[in-house]
């Protein structure tokens, strides 16, 4: 089962795990990304494209599910405004054995940084607002999978 979502509401991690687990898979790897309150950050805003963001998440999900023969994959990205500690992204990948689930999880988090139409804007307590610049390292990591 592949489940992909782009949502402005909070990601309910335990509920998503329950939903994902319905099949009782051998190995499940996950990645949870959260907003960090570094340097006085008070809000992270994630802008998305109403059509392309979800479409490219779904593409990535299918590529990963095929490549690692996953039994189940959940890929949920939050968009809009969120505060430190809130979950930005949740990946749950299941396979019979551990190597495939772990690799799929790592592939997806790497590719999310470079292949999906999402843009982060940070607001700090001193009033500064800035769009996050892509990091060179992200492209290097994403390129490992080509």
């Amino acid at each position, binding site marked *: 089962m592949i489940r992909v979502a782009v949502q402005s509401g909070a990601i309910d991690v335990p509920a998503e795990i329950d939903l994902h687990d319905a099949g009782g898979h051998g190995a499940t790897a996950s990645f949870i990304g959260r907003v960090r309150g570094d340097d006085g950050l008070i809000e992270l805003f994630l802008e998305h*494209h109403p059509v*392309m963001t979800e479409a490219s998440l779904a593409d990535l999900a299918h590529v990963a599910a095929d490549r690692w023969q996953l039994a189940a994959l959940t890929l949920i990205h939050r968009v809009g405004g969120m505060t430190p500690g809130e979950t930005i992204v949740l990946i749950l990948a299941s396979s019979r054995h551990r190597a495939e689930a772990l690799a799929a999880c790592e592939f997806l988090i790497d590719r999310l940084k470079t*292949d999906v139409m999402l843009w982060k804007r940070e607001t700090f307590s001193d009033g500064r607002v800035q*769009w996050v610049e892509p990091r060179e390292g992200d492209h290097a990591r994403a390129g490992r999978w080509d």
Partner: protein
Amino acid sequence: MALRLAYFAWVREHMGVAEEDAAPPAEVATVADLIGWLAARDERGGQAFAEPDRIRAAIDGMMAVPGTKIAGAGEVALFPPVTGG
């Protein structure tokens, strides 16, 4: 040619709108031409598209490159490199 333009992130902020309908002249054939035309059109465009290397584009939901032709396009989206995950 009537074209729907969609802007995202700081491109949207510079342009002051999330989308608009535009009618570029016939000699605007590619994504790069379109970016150049917008940069020259007004001050907002000049700010948004001052560095064409930092602009990415998608035509009707498909990623495009600077040389991609825009003939027949319904929507052209213009935006900075992505930073999700």
